């Protein structure tokens, strides 16, 4: 894994040009995304994009936790937690959906801290298992609180963020939220906090010997990660109007892992690309109905066998191949 360093880039004359190109690129992408509803008028396609944005936040937050070496296997359960908290607060308690959204994120963060702190001293594997068990238990617990959460049937008629029936405002607001969330996550990762997370991932002995508290930073990673996935869950609830345990079940948990892993765990853009590819491509084949998961699996296998480091490694592979060809041509000429 090569870790890029914005913290340490020594300024030289190329830096300004280097910073300009990605900036223009991101600007272009954002403009394109902003124009999307003008190109695709179909509510169904907007619906897909809205879901993609929600899952991107969830996947990126999951990857953020993974930079510290922990694997939050039940991250989707926190998505469910955020969704249910927001749903209950906005429907039964009568809070404004916007407020419920924020509270859902905060609750998710606190629960994440509570579950990670007692186990933060153990090998990362244990947090993965605890996370898994907790996730299963959490959903079962949510189900069993039938009166509050509607049990298996879930909650319906959740107050929505906008009263118009159109999906367009949701798209723009969620796009903004996604961009903000990603920007925040990116900032955390590229400042000293993010570096410390990567440090404790690489060596407990070394990081503790220079004063990095493993417990503190693991909990920080989980807190931030859970905040954003809780936010995504709330967004889902107040957009989708209905939620039920089956939206957050084991299959959902498994696929969230895929979005991160297939995109590439070592790159910030990984979960973004992974989610987009693995969520949207099978949707194209949604006409196959119950056979759609096979398409997802096929894409999964194709990617994992072809690109070990995930989809984000494709540009690098192409560049390496191209450079090799260039060298070959040069040596041929001489």
């Amino acid at each position, binding site marked *: 894994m090569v870790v890029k360093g914005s913290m340490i880039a020594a300024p030289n004359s190329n830096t300004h040009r280097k910073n300009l190109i990605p900036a223009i690129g991101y600007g272009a992408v954002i403009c394109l995304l902003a124009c999307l509803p003008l190109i695709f008028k179909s509510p169904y396609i907007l619906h897909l994009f809205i879901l993609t944005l929600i899952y991107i936040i969830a996947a990126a937050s999951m990857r953020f936790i993974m930079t510290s070496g922990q694997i939050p296997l039940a991250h989707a359960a926190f998505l469910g937690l955020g969704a249910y908290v927001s749903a209950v607060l906005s429907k039964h308690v009568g809070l404004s959906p916007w407020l419920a959204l924020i509270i859902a994120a905060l609750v998710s963060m606190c629960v994440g801290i509570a579950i990670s702190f007692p186990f933060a001293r153990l090998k990362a594997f*244990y947090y993965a298992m*605890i996370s898994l*068990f907790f996730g*299963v*238990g959490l959903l079962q617990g949510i189900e069993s609180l039938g009166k509050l959460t509607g049990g298996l049937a879930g909650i319906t008629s959740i107050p929505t963020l906008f009263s118009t029936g159109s999906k367009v405002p949701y798209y723009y607001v969620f796009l903004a939220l996604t961009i903000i969330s990603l920007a925040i996550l990116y900032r955390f990762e590229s400042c000293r906090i993010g570096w410390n997370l990567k440090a404790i991932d690489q060596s407990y002995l070394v990081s503790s010997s220079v004063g990095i508290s493993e417990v503190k930073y693991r909990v920080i990673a989980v807190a931030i990660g859970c905040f954003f996935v809780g936010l995504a869950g709330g967004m889902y609830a107040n957009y989708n109007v209905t939620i039920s345990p089956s939206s957050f079940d084991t299959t959902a948990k498994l696929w969230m892992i895929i979005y991160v*892993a297939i995109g590439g765990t070592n790159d910030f853009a990984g979960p973004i690309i992974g989610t987009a590819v693995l969520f949207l491509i099978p949707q194209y084949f949604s006409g196959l109905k*119950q056979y759609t998961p096979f398409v997802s*699996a096929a894409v999964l296998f194709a990617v994992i066998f072809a690109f070990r480091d995930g989809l984000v490694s494709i540009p690098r592979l192409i560049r390496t191949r191209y450079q090799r060809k260039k060298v070959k041509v040069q040596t041929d000429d001489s």
Partner: protein
Amino acid sequence: MPEATILLIIASIVNALVLSSMYILLALGFTFLFNIMGILNFAHGAIYMIGAYICFFLATAVGMNQWLAMLIAVAAVGLFGIFMERFAFRPFFGNINQIIVVCIGIITVLENGVSVSQGFIVQVTPPFVQGIFRVGIVSISWERVVIFLIGISLLVLVLLFINKTKQGLQMRAVAQDLEGAVLQGINVHFVSALACVIACALAALAGSLMGSYLSLTPYMGQDIMIKVLEILVLGGIGSINGVLFAGLIVGTLDAVLPIMVSGTATQAIMMLIIIIILLFKPQGLFGKEVRG
């Protein structure tokens, strides 16, 4: 003590023994894969499920005798184990992220294959053994006895295999020190494949039996996978003794809890119990140092 209570207790004990024996077989196979190949085979539950469904299908749609169906299921899944080791595990050896991805892919294909062809309705394989065994006021179905006996015998067989045979010795060597084993001339690929076959065969066997004892759904693999991981973590990763004891505990809890609490809460309570135990003894019953 009222008769009903005695019967309830005995029924629970029997249930606990049956469940424990099956869980232990599964967890044992999983632990082999972990010890020998360093792989957490998340698809283990799906293997269990597919074994169950193959047996079910052969026994019902094809009308085969259940025992024969089970043997074929075990053989087929065992062969699949070789395939898995070669194409799913070996290419990604050492990289946990990629192994997880591949396992999820396998799970998706298997679960969806089953749900598409068999549907989501709960099915049951016809019982392997009919009849009830009576002693005094106690009556236990023969099937339970047989399943438990099969579980125990296989457990003993596997443990004997590991400890007494040449291949078992090789497996233990690879588990302890991969490089050393290679230098000794042990064919690690063969050992890994063997471990995979055994693990998958055990899973298929347990699945076939449980398909009759409990029931079948396409997602039964996920539930059982959680149990296997619970056993693993409770018992201490990689410890065979741990698997035995933790398997017994989990099986007993599974048999006893549903009597005391409603269905959905059972899982939640189990999780709570396990998390609390781990708070005090994070390395599990027989595990080693876990700090860092």
